[in-house]
């Protein structure tokens, strides 16, 4: 890739847009999560502030911005402040290789999915550092759980994505999109239903959301690794958690659901509709299933998802060798 002013300007513009997307996504998701949770539990959800409670999320973000940053005693100063920053910044990079439309890719590289997986690893590091630096038993327990869980669920996730990479013969997100058609029966989900299922389960584990939200587990660990963070420190964790959700949903949409391709007209609107459908699914199961125990969580991963993922990969390779 040649260095040029155009690419430089393109990346700066993309990063600005991604920050706007992250913040907007968090506001929309907070509202959606509360409303959906309300309807699932047969209560109205937020309805006081603004029409149907729509301004509630904005008011809450204002509150977080204005809140005092309280730092408990005996924390590891550098690591305590480094952790939320480290949670936030890698996420900006993760959105760069996503093809939003035929013309809308911030950084077109051949190994797009490897870039995403590589920098997603820094997220768990921030959870770890936050939990350790807080000098708090609950936080430390949450961090230890976050590590065991994320390291475990990364593997079936990669295996599921690898099956699609086998099919398309490319790790380039744009080429994977291009090889799928406009209509739902031309998408990879029909060719790789098991991989899609494995990916769906492991993305819930990877983003630490209920029923797999053991690192936070408010009924046993207060708030897990971010117990000691207030104000913007907490807000950065919160933003990056929702941004990670959006990212794994985008990847699901690109790999299995045809990306920006859709009936009538291709474009970023289809990618957003598909990604938010996956997000809605994540919110739905969060408020429907109770939290699993930690041994159940790890057993599900190592004894079911990992062998299934390997089997699926093997079957994909064999079938491709014989029939294609």
């Amino acid at each position, binding site marked *: 890739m040649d260095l040029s002013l155009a690419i430089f300007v393109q990346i700066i513009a993309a990063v600005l847009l991604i920050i706007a997307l992250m913040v907007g996504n968090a506001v929309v998701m907070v509202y959606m999560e509360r409303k959906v949770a309300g309807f699932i539990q047969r209560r109205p959800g937020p309805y006081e502030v603004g029409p149907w409670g729509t301004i509630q999320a904005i008011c809450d973000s204002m509150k977080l911005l204005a809140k005092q940053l309280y730092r408990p005693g005996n924390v590891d100063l550098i690591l305590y402040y480094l952790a939320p920053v480290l949670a936030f910044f890698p996420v900006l990079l993760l959105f760069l290789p996503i093809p939003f439309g035929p013309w809308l890719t911030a950084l077109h590289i051949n190994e797009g999915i490897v870039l995403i997986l590589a920098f997603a690893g820094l997220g768990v590091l921030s959870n770890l550092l936050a939990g350790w630096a807080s000098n708090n038993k609950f936080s430390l327990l949450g961090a*230890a759980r976050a590590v065991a869980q994320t*390291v475990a669920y990364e593997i079936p996730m990669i295996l599921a994505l690898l099956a699609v990479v086998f099919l398309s013969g490319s790790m380039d997100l744009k080429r994977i999109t291009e090889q799928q058609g406009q209509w739902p029966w031309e998408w990879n989900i029909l060719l790789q239903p098991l991989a899609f299922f494995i990916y769906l389960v492991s993305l819930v584990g990877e983003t630490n959301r209920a029923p797999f939200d053991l690192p936070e587990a408010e009924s046993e660990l207060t708030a897990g690794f971010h117990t000691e963070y207030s104000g913007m420190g907490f807000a950065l964790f919160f933003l990056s958690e929702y941004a990670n959700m959006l990212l794994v949903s985008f990847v699901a949409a690109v790999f299995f659901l045809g990306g920006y391709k859709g009936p009538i007209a291709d474009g970023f609107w289809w990618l957003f509709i598909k990604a938010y459908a996956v997000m809605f699914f994540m919110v739905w199961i969060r408020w429907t299933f109770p939290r699993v125990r930690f041994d159940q969580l790890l057993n599900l991963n190592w004894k079911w998802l990992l062998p299934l993922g390997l089997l699926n990969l093997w079957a994909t390779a064999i079938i491709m060798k014989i029939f294609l």
Partner: protein
Amino acid sequence: MNDLIGQVFNAIGALLADLEAWLSPYLPGQSKVALLAFGFYVLLLLGGGLTAILARNLVRATLGLIITFLGVAGFYLLLASPFLAMMQLLIYIGAVCVLIFFAIMLTKNTSDGEEASLPRLANLIYAFLAGLAPLVVAGPLIVQGTKDIVTRQPVDSGTNLGEGLLSIDLLSFELISIILLVAMAGAVYLAWRPSGGEERA
């Protein structure tokens, strides 16, 4: 609609190319930028290494190790191997360092442990000499063996890597797999307690 967006992007790209041509005498060239990046990665490597050695706390030392790995990934980028650079991040930072952290958290981490005080001067000197050893062995080879700098076009490193691993380097690839398999079996054996046996310490 999409064609329109594409045309707008192309127009902006052409405008920026004109601007670049006009500004080019004042912008740093490609080799300058590479040199700057090289300096930055060397700083990361040295700073991370020093942090790892001198930190009085295991977690901070591991953070130093992570910074060093970032520097190594940067060097892979400079060598036009983005695939290797990302694998470095994925495996060494995303898995190895995180597991080291996990091990640190599971052990008792007292503030008055052996690593809490600076080692004696003699130990520091020995460590420095030991660190110089690879330099003494490999340094002359590198300096004498390097004739000139070869500039290469960036290659699709993923494809080349895969083809290489399954053709000329097949034997070493399989040997590494066997070593890893043996290591894994050993780890399982060490951690294995038959059910009903004594509790793990």
